[in-house]
């Protein structure tokens, strides 16, 4: 058999999940969609002694509209996000980006919470969480807390979660009015890991001045990378091609830190980042509803 032996638990309530996690701590891994964990277990790169399967916890799988936010259960499948009408309406950036996550066969099993907690720098969902100012609800047997996406990703495959905590819910604020969005990536084939990807959001005021800009990159460092300084170059300005180009140059030269891989050198990744930044910003601008 490929994976090393493990002790298997399949609880059916959040309460049982948290009991188990408080009992086993770091020895236990959560099994969500399994689309990253099981390959790693098949190669025995990862050999958890305890596996807590979340797939029978129905109360973790939902997509709901609250007053001003979307609430998504950690076990909502990526395929459900893709076709959800609330997400299409209130988080168009997420709606646009989900089809870029691997292939339908993977999205049928893969979950939003699983991908976020896996914290792969090349993954789409962590980037989207940062771009959308999402908040992540961590729960343990004793307490619960909300973590801003900005403070959640702590490096390569690492998050701010404590050993006894589980990510249970993702809160995504509704897209603001007068906000345009765009997500683009370049991959050898659609569905492969992207060589570079960018999520962009632009909000304009009545005078078409940019009040807020977001630029977040995948495969550009040891986690999702936000180009904070490039965003500042755009904010407070009426955007034009020159400004967009200088923001794209700044972000791709100074703010991202791509490592290069078999498909793309770091230089090529920077080049892609610059081109994609310009393209996404322009598309986002076009989409701002007036």
């Amino acid at each position, binding site marked *: *058999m*490929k*994976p*090393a*032996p*493990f*002790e*298997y638990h*399949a609880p059916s309530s959040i309460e049982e999940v948290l009991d188990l996690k408080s009992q086993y701590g770091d020895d236990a891994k959560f*099994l969500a969609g*399994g*689309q990253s964990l*099981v*390959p790693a*277990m*098949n*190669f025995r790169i990862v050999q958890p002694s305890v*596996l807590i*399967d979340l*797939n029978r916890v129905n109360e973790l799988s939902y997509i709901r509209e609250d007053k001003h936010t979307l609430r998504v259960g950690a076990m909502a499948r990526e*395929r459900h996000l893709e076709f959800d009408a609330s997400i299409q309406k209130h988080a168009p950036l997420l709606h646009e980006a989900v089809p870029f996550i*691997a*292939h*339908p*066969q*993977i999205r*049928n*099993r893969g979950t939003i919470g699983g991908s976020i907690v896996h914290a792969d720098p090349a993954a789409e969902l962590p980037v989207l969480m940062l771009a959308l100012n999402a908040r992540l609800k961590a729960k343990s047997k004793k307490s619960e807390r909300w973590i801003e996406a900005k403070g959640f990703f702590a490096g390569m495959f690492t998050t701010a979660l404590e050993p006894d905590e589980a990510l249970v819910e993702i809160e995504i604020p509704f897209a603001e009015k007068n906000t345009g969005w765009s997500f683009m990536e370049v991959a050898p*084939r*659609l*569905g492969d890991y992207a060589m570079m990807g960018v999520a962009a959001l632009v909000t304009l005021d009545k005078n078409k001045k940019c009040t807020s800009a977001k630029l977040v990159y995948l495969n550009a460092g040891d986690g999702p990378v936000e180009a904070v300084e490039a965003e500042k170059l755009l904010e407070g300005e009426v955007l034009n091609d020159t400004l967009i180009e200088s923001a794209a140059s700044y972000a791709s030269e100074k703010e991202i830190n791509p490592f290069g891989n078999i498909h793309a050198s770091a230089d090529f990744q920077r080049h892609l980042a610059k081109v994609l930044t310009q393209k996404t910003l322009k598309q986002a601008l076009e989409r701002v509803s007036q």
Partner: protein
Amino acid sequence: MKQVTITVNGKEYTREVEPRLLLSDFLRHELGLTGTHVGCEHGVCGACTILFDGESARSCLTFAVQADGHEITTVEGLTSLSSPHLLEDGRTEGGNNLHPLQQAFWEAHGLQCGYCTPGILMSMIPFLKQNPNPTEDEIRHALSGNLCRCTGYQHIVDAVKLAAEKMR
């Protein structure tokens, strides 16, 4: 060991399994359903694709214990009767009950060595259900999660087009 009851191609099976047994190995080794092929075993090649409660999924990325109480469809479930087989005089017999998708792969030469075929078929079943009239672009996109090492993609695309016609 855990006891699981899994419905595969409409038939219920109860077995004792180790939690680490992959669904792909369960299908092949416990049930003898060797139509589900095993390629990369890390979710890239798509050879092991099955339907999990009607939706395509990699059986190498799911443990058999996770399928307890669920419905699995494998390539064997596409046709109820025997597949075509070669007679001594070179003619073929049987196969009249092939699923139209299988029939289309046969007619359009959509397989060479056939290793990737079961996975491709199981990916295309839900795809054609959701997109009865796909464009070539959509077909190529839908096939991107399945690798063919014979480089027979053109014929595979043709076969899916033909299948769409047959199934409409």
